[in-house]
């Protein structure tokens, strides 16, 4: 069980990294793109804005935590 937990923790750290907010934000941003495109609204512009916002948020969290 301990080995399984370590295995899971390794992959969580490898994929999600040290700021889970970024991973969640990317999933929500992609959901937004899919919804807009599904509604017939071009949404190529959305993800770059989400990326900029997530980077700003993640930097703010890192700076406040230091």
């Amino acid at each position: 069980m301990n080995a399984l937990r370590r295995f899971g923790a390794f992959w969580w750290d490898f994929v999600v990294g040290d700021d889970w907010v970024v991973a969640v934000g990317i999933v929500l941003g992609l959901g937004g793109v899919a919804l807009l495109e599904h509604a017939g609204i071009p949404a190529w512009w959305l993800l770059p804005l989400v990326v900029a916002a997530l980077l700003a948020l993640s930097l703010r969290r890192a700076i406040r935590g230091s």
Partner: protein
Amino acid sequence: MSLLILFLAAFAASAVEMVEALTIVVAVGVTRGWRSPMWGVGVAFVALGGIVAVLGPALTLIPISALRLVVGALLLVFGLQWLRKAILRASGWKALHDEDEIFAREREAARAAGRERRGAIDDWFSFTVSFKGVFLEGLEVAFIVISFGGTKGGVPVAAAGATLALVMVVVTGFVVRGPLSRVPENALKFAVGTMLTTFGTFWAAEGAGAHWPGGDAAILGVLGFVVLVSLVFVRVARGLRPAAAAVAA
């Protein structure tokens, strides 16, 4: 053009990770001898090659839009992690990666550790430290190379970039026999972060159903946007530093 950026991204990512792995291997090698660390390095490369060889072709079985969505999201997570650290270092909020300091620390640990023989391996400590160093640093590069399977001809081009960087780092490390502290690691990490974020944004948006104006040429536009935003954030983050720290820097 996009294949050239793929090559450069894989080259820079591999160079950074292999410089970090080299510091660990050389510290162990010069302290305890080279035979067991070289076994560790060899086994790690076989494992990494196996991951690329198995997962690379397997990805071609997944529908391209689903592949781009998942791979793009993964590259975005990696890219934003690299970028955040690079921006924090460039703005003085995080200490620069110091290979000399890491080398000294690894040498101290190598001196203090006991010696144990297991099977064909003379020195189990040297073997495991070298294996972990190369495998863990190389795993992200392996995933980046595999991820580029999302584009036509991507895996061979990315693998070539990663291999070229590996050869250059190993040859330089062999000549220097010490940590490669002059490699501009933060600048390379900044470049890798912007490129991974760019490809991640482009592919993930396409996978989610978006159509980029100008097709593949939009990659350059996304790259320009990511670089610009990152440079602005470096400037803003520098401005947020306490006055005393800014003067000391």
